[in-house]
């Protein structure tokens, strides 16, 4: 597979982007289309702790989860649903486990589809198992198991293949706790992008071979870690202005999947997906106010602005008054989607989109940059130097800084702390070279020294 860099925007202007529609929709699973004019709930779940005890127990658990969700969707009249199974480690390390789960789930989904005609698809997100206790092991034996897991799950019934890959994380982890901008850029923008280039060509080949969908990657390992560490308004572990810079850089990284042949839907936890959609035109999953079961963010509505699938990220399977958790959350998602679908059907999608965005764009710097008109601008900064993974990532960082600065002159309030962190970051990025090779060689020296667990051979360096 060749890699074709994105150097142009898929959308002529930001205002053309809406939820439920994408430039290049995707057909998958049992009658489902993504991005053709309606949004669909994507339900995520984690097995109960005890369920990991054996392969049989795990399969049983996923069968229950699957039945519960399908049943509830029928009970409330939802026309479509996607299930996402994020592998627990056993399922990827033993590809036959993952495949058995995919098969069990798909069988149940087929029964519901046959009986009720409900449109549905199954996403399997393979765990990035290329890590041992001390080091990332991105290449070698574990890589083969990883690819085997993709292939076995695809053959067994998974319709949509995804991963949250970890390239660059060892450097990023060190850098993010130290406000080290070069390290953040190197970890996400350079190392992450390089690793993705490798895996996404291979995943796409597997998808082609198995007739499944090569869907995409998110920068969970890095941009989401930053977002989580930044936390809520009163948390004091990381400036939110730094978290949004990491996020903007991650768009340049996550784009690589599509350049290597993936077609979407981009995974839910990629808060960078609006930017990615602007550049690549692929459908995307998003999460926000209906994934509070999994985490808290400051853009609960905003993330709906351009989503094609709408997800709860993850919830542990257990009982509530209203049914099991997967039933409760899938129902809430389905109503959120119904609202968006009404808007699409009645021609009100743009006004609803704008209300989603307005709800959170002043809540903090992250929402401000990710609001679709600003996200579009970050996309432009990336596409402008689309052929240079370093430069485009740096552009993204600088553009996001510029956007926040502009925001501060308007309705976006920043704390003094956030403003200072932004200023320092700006200086750091402006001091960086424009030359990729120079940057990489500087970083190699620096991080081989500072980060004990950083092994350049993971990236063929």
């Amino acid at each position, binding site marked *: 597979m060749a890699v074709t860099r994105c150097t142009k925007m898929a959308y002529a202007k930001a205002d053309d982007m809406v939820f439920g529609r994408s430039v290049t929709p995707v057909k998958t699973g049992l009658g489902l289309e993504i991005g053709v004019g309606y949004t669909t709930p994507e339900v995520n779940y984690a097995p109960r702790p005890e369920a990991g005890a054996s392969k049989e127990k795990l399969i049983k658990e996923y069968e229950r989860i699957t039945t519960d969700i399908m049943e509830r969707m029928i009970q409330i*009249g939802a*026309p479509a649903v996607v299930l996402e199974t994020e592998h627990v480690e056993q399922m990827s390390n033993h590809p036959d486990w993952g495949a058995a789960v995919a098969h069990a789930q798909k069988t149940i989904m087929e029964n519901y589809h046959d009986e009720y*005609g409900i449109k549905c698809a199954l996403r399997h997100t393979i765990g990035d198992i290329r890590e041992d206790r001390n080091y990332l092991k991105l290449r070698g034996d574990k890589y083969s198991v990883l690819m085997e897991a993709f292939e076995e799950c695809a053959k067994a019934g998974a319709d949509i293949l995804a991963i949250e890959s970890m390239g660059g994380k060892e450097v990023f982890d060190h850098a993010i706790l130290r406000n080290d901008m070069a390290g953040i850029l190197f970890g996400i923008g350079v190392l992450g992008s390089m690793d993705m280039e490798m895996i996404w060509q291979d995943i796409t080949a597997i998808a082609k071979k198995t007739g499944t969908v090569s869907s995409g990657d998110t920068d969970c390992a890095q941009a989401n870690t930053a977002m989580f560490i930044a936390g809520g308004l009163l948390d004091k572990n990381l400036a939110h202005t730094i978290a949004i810079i990491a996020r903007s850089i991650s768009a340049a990284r996550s784009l690589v999947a599509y350049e290597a042949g993936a077609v979407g839907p981009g995974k839910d936890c990629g808060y960078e997906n609006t930017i990615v959609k602007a550049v690549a035109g692929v459908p995307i999953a998003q999460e926000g106010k209906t994934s509070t079961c999994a985490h808290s963010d400051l853009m609960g509505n905003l993330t709906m602005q351009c989503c094609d699938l709408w997800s709860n990220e993850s919830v542990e399977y257990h*009982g509530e008054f209203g049914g*099991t958790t997967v039933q409760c959350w899938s129902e809430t998602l389905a109503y959120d989607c119904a609202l968006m679908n009404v808007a699409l*059907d009645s021609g009100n999608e743009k006004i609803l989109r704008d209300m989603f965005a307005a709800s959170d764009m002043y809540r903090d710097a992250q929402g401000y940059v990710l609001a679709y008109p600003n996200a579009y601008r970050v996309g432009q900064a990336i596409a402008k130097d689309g052929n240079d993974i370093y430069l485009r990532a740096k552009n993204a960082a600088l553009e996001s800084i510029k956007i926040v600065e502009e925001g501060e002159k308007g309705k976006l309030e920043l704390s003094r702390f956030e403003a200072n962190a932004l200023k320092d970051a700006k200086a750091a990025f402006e001091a960086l070279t424009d030359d990729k090779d120079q940057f990489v060689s500087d970083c190699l020296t620096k991080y081989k020294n500072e980060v004990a667990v950083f092994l350049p051979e993971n990236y063929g360096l």
Partner: protein
Amino acid sequence: MIDINPSGILVRYNVKMEKKMTPEEAAEELYPKDPTIYPIAKAIFEGEEDDVVEGLEKAIGSGKDPISLINGALMVGMGVVSRLYDEGVIFLPNVMLSADAMQAGIEFCKTKTSKVPESKGKVVCHVAEGDVHDIGKNIVAALLRANGYDVVDLGRDVPVDEVIAAVEKERPLMLTGTALMTTTMYAFKEINDKLLKKGIKIPFACGGGAVNQDFVSQYELGVYGEEASDAVKIADFIKENGNDIAKLRGIFHKH
């Protein structure tokens, strides 16, 4: 109001799935052909007490044994009702009205003989101490009765010791408990422990809004049931396969 095309927004699966046959047509296919039994079964299905009694009178007049009519006519009619309810052809109020009619029929038969009718088995039902939510329990009791079980209904807000006493006295096939509040369902554990102390090991089917499978799995005798009709299925299973709780859980613990 804005105008939308609902077909892209929602699917009325109930409309889509509705059986072609009307309930009456479906029932007609299931009634016994015997001309003395047929009108009784049909009157049960229609929930018409008067017609049930009238049919029974005629049948007894023509020489049928009152007790045998309970199983041979009333229960047969109720069997039609239960089956069509299970298949989604008829709804609960039909079952309730039929069950009322069947009770009337049974009472009538009893007045016509000194023999004691045999039941499929005894079940003790109750709502947990402190809890007044009893509609679920009422449905459970009605469905059990409709399926030929002899139900001892202790009502709602039943003290633990009263449940134990009833079980000791009645020695039922199983005990059912309903709870709709997280604060009341803990009584089930106590009941379980006290029963075990007394060496009584019968299945304790538990359900109701607050109750979930994880909770019920925590005490030895517990079997979780989601739907009221599961109570009947659990009882039937016990009658046929004995009261092995692990087996019961294997079938009824679906979550």
